[in-house]
């Protein structure tokens, strides 16, 4: 069955099992591998993408569920919040193993797009679905605050 949606601004049509999670469709049928597999049940956030701007766990979203919608991955993010987040992530050196960081960044960008000056509680709410086993959490928090300051400035 063909599923059509907009991926990083470009229309794509994929001939895939409609039940296939969006994660695997993006990774294996489009070839964008920045989005990661971590748990397969929306517990860890490594697979986070934006669907219509909303952070979404692509491992548990059937590809048919995004028919006609706009999907953004780590490869396609842009704009003020995305630039501020990625710059802060590098400056503060958030990543260790780096595997979860695409998902962390997608959640952080969505947070800042909706809440430009998040409190620590806002960060907890938006980011507690993203696990980092290297526990880079101290720096994730710092980088989100730093990105918020950049956006304001």
């Amino acid at each position, binding site marked *: 069955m063909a599923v059509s949606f907009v991926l990083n601004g470009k229309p794509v049509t994929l001939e895939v*099992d409609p*039940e*296939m*999670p969006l994660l*695997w469709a993006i990774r*294996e*049928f489009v*070839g*964008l*591998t*920045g*989005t*990661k*597999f*971590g*748990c*397969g*049940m929306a*517990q*860890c956030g*490594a697979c986070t993408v934006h669907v219509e701007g909303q952070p979404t766990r692509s491992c548990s979203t059937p590809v048919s569920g995004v028919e006609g919608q706009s999907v953004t*991955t*780590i*490869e396609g993010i842009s704009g003020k919040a995305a630039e501020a987040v*990625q710059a802060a*992530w*590098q400056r503060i*050196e*958030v*990543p*260790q*193993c*780096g*595997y*979860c*960081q*695409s998902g962390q*960044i997608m959640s952080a960008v969505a947070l800042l797009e909706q809440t430009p000056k998040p409190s620590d509680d806002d*960060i*907890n709410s938006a*980011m*507690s*679905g*993203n*696990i*980092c*086993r*290297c*526990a*880079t*959490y*101290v*720096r*994730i*928090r710092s980088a989100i605050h730093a990105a918020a300051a950049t956006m304001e400035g």
Partner: protein
Amino acid sequence: MMKNFAIDPRPSRRRFLQGGAATAAGLTIGFHWNASVPKFTSAAHAADGALAPNAFVRIGADNTVTVLSKHLEMGQGVYTGLATIVAEELGADWEQVRVEAAPADASLYNNLQFGPVQGTGGSSSVANSYDQLRKAGATARAMLVSAAAKEWAVDPAGITVEKGVVMHAASRRSASFGELAGKAAALPVPAEVPLKDPSRFTLIGTSVPRVDAKSKTNGTAQFALDVKLPGMLTAVIARPPVFGATVKSVDSAAAKAVPGVVKVVQVPSGVAVVAENFWAAKKGRDALAVQWDEAAAETRGTTELMAEYKALAEKPGTPARNEGDAVKAMAGAARTITAAFEFPYLAHAPMEPLDCVVRLEGDRCEVWAGDQFQTIDQGNAAAAAGLKPAQVQIHTLVAGGSFGRRANAASDYIVEAVHIAKALDRGTPVKLVWTREDDIRGGRYRPMYYHKLTAGLDAQGKPVAWQHRIVGQSILGGTPFEPVMVKNGIDGTSVEGAANLPYDIPNLSVELHTTKVGVPVLWWRSVGSTHTAYSTEVFIDELAHAAGKDPVEFRRALLAHHPRHRAVLELAAEKAGWGTKLPEGKARGVAVHESFATYVAQVAEITMQPDGSVKVDRVICAVDCGRAINPDVIRAQMEGGIGFGLGGVLYGELTLDKGEVQQSNFHDYRVLRIDEMPKVEVHIVPSSEAPTGVGEPGVPPIGPAVANAVFAATGRRVRNLPFTRDQSV
């Protein structure tokens, strides 16, 4: 030579390491190592105009400096650390430095602490590479200087190298590395080269940016999961529900009917479903009907096992350390105190579940993996493929975490992929993916342990006797490491951190009962210290309390012969404002522990929550890891170690019922999340001692520091982990 653990209880993986010829011979047999692996022959293989004076550094005509890392980058910052050492001695500009994974080759890239093995672990990467890479960088610099001196017809003594520029000030001439590389490559490689005086270091000790920060921020970093080769298939494996079971029969008809499924293959560990993509493979596996033969399986549950462990702890074990006469001193003590501790099985659960790509083509085998034990994996892949190690090429990619899981003597996931590849058309690459459920239920856990401690205090509250019994499985048992690393019945990984207790107690006995259980176990970030630091540091706190002494003062008085322990303890206490009053409901706890020759003390500040749980607000950490190569990476490893260790003690637990693992994914194998992460403040002890590792040593102190804070707040000792088991927290 290997030291006697009873005399010198050094941490284990380092020991297997310092081994001389005996170690080498023993391990060679076990692992099919082969010295005839093709060598990275420096200059001969270097591209035109490039300088490759040794196996670790290559300078291109394009002015790039490529450092070859013999170690796996799994988050610990090793690519950055190793490259810093080379760049420092070379005089490179950090901007021109790149890092590549070295090929598998034990003769060139062995871990100098592991004997003839190329592998990463035991927080040994920087420690074993420091001298080697300084020399590698200095050699390249010397050759660039010689080439410049020859070219400019000047005295090399007048030539300086700084920030990637070779300069002769007197004649005002300068050249980039790239301009000189080709000429330098024609010169002989000097055997002896001078090293920089550390006072002139410009990169070591500064926090140069991580080489992988950008690629790990924009999604371009390449993990094994991201490898895509022409014609590649994807496999998942159905493994038995209990450890040790084997396949009795398989009905694969329904699996084969799933569109995209290419093949169903029986492999030693289970039944593999091979498909055109992951989703088809997984659906195929869901449709498999496998009957398992559980005759040889482990069918005990963790409750039964713990009951057996407790009974064992009442009997004398094998001595791991014995000083004075603990029994006699205990009998004469003014008072004795006893405590027992329970530690559960723990999964590593790295964010990237195990995965690799294998291609068998002609008489060659290629492996793409976040490979942690390259030459062991090379040997095991060769044995599984029916090839020689020299015919196996390992492409080491960055790993999405490991925490020890990828370092296993059986090379489990790589061997599985080789077996699958053997069943496919020659030349067909296959990617094996473990799901999270496979990871959590797949074994190779931090072993379950039971500890029983008894101490005697004299009338002044001074400890005069200490007895420590540890019960649990051997990590090394049944592996090729066992014959060389288990000495006098003691697996050093079971007792490290306990057998080398630093406290001055005249009568001291540490004993071990090694249990036989069919649950595969493995080292978990900081290995023995994951449990020994907890039991010893909580117990010493109990003794301080019993003696009516301040916990910091009590420890200090017993650390006269261990100045580095004492220094980090004092630094952490000072920075934490130890002894000052905290707001109502908050409390502090402290712990100090050495692992892998790095000394760490942590003070945890906690707030007890209305529901009885504990919130860790802030952790003050002092670390002495010798010379600090990259202070920011050290801070990051302490932060991460604290978070990893905290999640483990607060929530980590795998239970078995009739041999079956009860947890399966992050919903029931809980790990630390951002809202539970404390603030962390790291203080690095200035030092000119040889650098030691930081990947693991941040982990051990956090558990006992938090437990001791909980005691300070509530008067309750948490002795059974995880904390969520203890109803009070």
